[in-house]
């Protein structure tokens, strides 16, 4: 984990400015989604977009992107999230699965229909559709 973070840091340092821009992506054509909805999806309050079953994907716990996502999109601290998921456990809901890296997240999103995750803007390719954007200011 540490190893990866270092690489990411380097990456961040040597990559142009809009490296701090992220997007929530899916692999199916979809209209943009409100932040509220994104939050609902990632907090597993809602599991569908329309009729489509959604599989929310997190990056690994230590990931800075994830941290940014949680801070900027979910508006929840780690602690809040932890207590939230504990409560959800009582209510019968499991947290989203997580992927180790962006690459795997991308692969997953591409391979799994209904997967939704978040990546850096520059890592987006043609097969992904952005449903939400945020940046790390």
């Amino acid at each position, binding site marked *: 984990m540490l190893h990866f973070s270092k690489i990411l840091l380097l990456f961040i340092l040597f990559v142009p400015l809009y490296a701090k821009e992220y997007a929530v992506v899916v692999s199916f054509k979809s209209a943009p989604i409100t932040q509220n909805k994104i939050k609902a999806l990632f907090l597993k309050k809602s599991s569908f977009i329309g009729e489509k*079953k959604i*599989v929310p994907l997190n990056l690994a716990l230590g990931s800075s992107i994830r941290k940014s996502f949680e801070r900027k999109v979910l508006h929840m601290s780690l602690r809040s999230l932890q207590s939230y998921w504990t409560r959800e456990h009582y209510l019968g809901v499991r947290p989203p699965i997580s992927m*180790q890296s962006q*690459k*795997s997240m991308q*692969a*997953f999103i591409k391979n799994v229909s209904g*997967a939704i995750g978040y990546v850096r803007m520059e890592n987006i390719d043609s097969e992904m559709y952005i449903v939400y954007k945020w940046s790390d200011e």
Partner: protein
Amino acid sequence: MFIEKIKKSLRLKLLVNFLFVSLFPFAILFLYVLFFTQTKIVDKSIIEQYKRIESVSSQIDTQLHSLQKELFFLASLDLMDDILAEDIDKRVTRLLAKKANDLGEKIDLFVVDTQQKIVASSEDSLLNHSFKLPVQLKNNFYIQKGTLLLFTKIYASFNKEKTVGHLILQYDLKNLDTYLIHTQSRHSYITNCADFHLGDRTKLAVSLEKQKADVITKEHVIVYKKLGSFLKNYYLVYAVDKSLALKFMYDFIYFMVYISVFGLLMILLLALRYSKSLVLPIEKLTNATQEIGKSHNYSQTLVVSSMDEIGVLTSSFNAMLHTTSQTLQTLEVENRLRLQRFIQLIELFNSIIQTKDETECIEVAIEEMKTITQKHDLKFLKQKTPEGIDLYVSDFEKNEKIYFGSISLSVEGFSDTNEERFYTSIANMIMLQLDKIRLIHRTTAASNAKSAFISTMSHELRTPLNAIIGASQFLISYENISDEQQDTVANIESSAHYLLNMINEILDIAKIESGKMEVHKTEVNLSEIAQSSYNMLQPLAEDKGLAFEFLQEKEQDFSLFTDMKILQQILINLLSNAIKFTQKGFVKMELHTDAEKLIISISDSGIGIAQEDIALLFHEFSQLENPMQKKYKGTGLGLSLSRKMAHLLDGDVTLHSDGLGQGTTAILTFFCYTTKDNTSEFVNV
């Protein structure tokens, strides 16, 4: 022979029994081992092999099942979702690698995605290759080219409907080698009877057909089992060299032999020693009893040296000895008593027997009995009493018993029958003595009467006869009688002579028979007597024209201690008989001896006697009916008298004849004689 010996010795019996009992188990065991253990050992080996095979097969099964469980567990991990991202982060690969490493052995784990591409794998070389799982498999495994493949579907953690791929575990069956033993005498292998064979390559003659079986071949004991679950139709075979299995048995047999020999010796020694000590008390007892038997010392007691049966025996023996001793003592006492009684009886008898008259007899008897019975009031009573011994004497004429008297002794008072009999015997003795005395008196009286009669008679009879003879002789001497008258007178004379002879002979016989004939024995020269007798009768023989000889065997004089008168009478009688009964021929008198006796034989060539008539002649008054009887005048008493006289002189007269007309020989025999040279052959009785 040996059996006889054993029969005689308790010790040997014990020994033999001991040995037998001790060796019997050995023998049985030995035989058992020899004959039965082989199969048992083989069976045991089979059982052991079964156990092992079971254990191994279950181990294999467990191992494969646990591998499968691991597989299922891995497949259930959320981490497997990464496969959907093609395991770009290699999280799954790393996990599989670690797991494969942990499991050890030759195992590969890999994940095949829905496109049949190996996306994650513990083995780098497999990555990105395509892998096709055989379609339509009922179970979650299959075997391919010596590899067992376990697989399971992986589902997405967020959506159990979605198949992520398959997790496959590749298990090289060579890993099973760890379960197989390879030693020199133990062989094991796994085979599927087709292309797979793992383990020992030894050729085993076994066809694998059943689920589970054992086979005994010439060299091996084989056990096999069909493995199940993952390894269907695979057989696990275990074999043990027979020699190894039986080696134990052979070793054991050798061991047994050594032990047996050793054991035998031990047992023998022990038996010898122990049997000896067992039998020793018996021997001691035997010796002691033999001692007692020899020494007749029944007052001894044996030492009781133990408390077992032998001790009991010794005690009983002692008791018996004591009883015997006591009995003997009692017997002795009784014996003495009996003896005493006997002696008393004899003494009494002795005393009584010397008595000469009835009164004396009774007196002596009473006295003796007083002493014996210690009853000093014993009396002789003339009347019968209820308590007394009645004495009877015999009446010889009437031949019955007369009551004589009683002794006042109650026989019934004696409890002991022997005592009763004793006193009854005494009474009998007394009665006998009384009878004897009476008899003696009677006989004496009779004898005296007889003697008186004989002497009177001889005198009374002879006197008239002599007168008759004298008178007749006087008459004969008359010149004036006619021949006829002379004949008549001669007849009277001869008759009177005859009568006189008869009277003499009768009186002689009577004398001899009543024992009144006195025998005066002196040394008599037999030859002289014989000669004198010969001389006396010669005229008679000459008259008849017979050759009359007297022969003496040896030129010696025979001396005989005898009565001269009687002897002469005998000789004269015999000679006269010989001459009488011989018409013509000879009469020979011989005097000879043989070893024991002196023989005077008077032989004639007379009328002879038939054999059957010889005996008759010796009876009184018998003459043989003979036509020529008239010729022979005689009283008929001659031979009888001669014989009787001979008997008086310790001799005998016998007649011999070859038959009628063959002549007769009268033999006078004396057993005791002396020759003149004083060599007596026999001592005079």
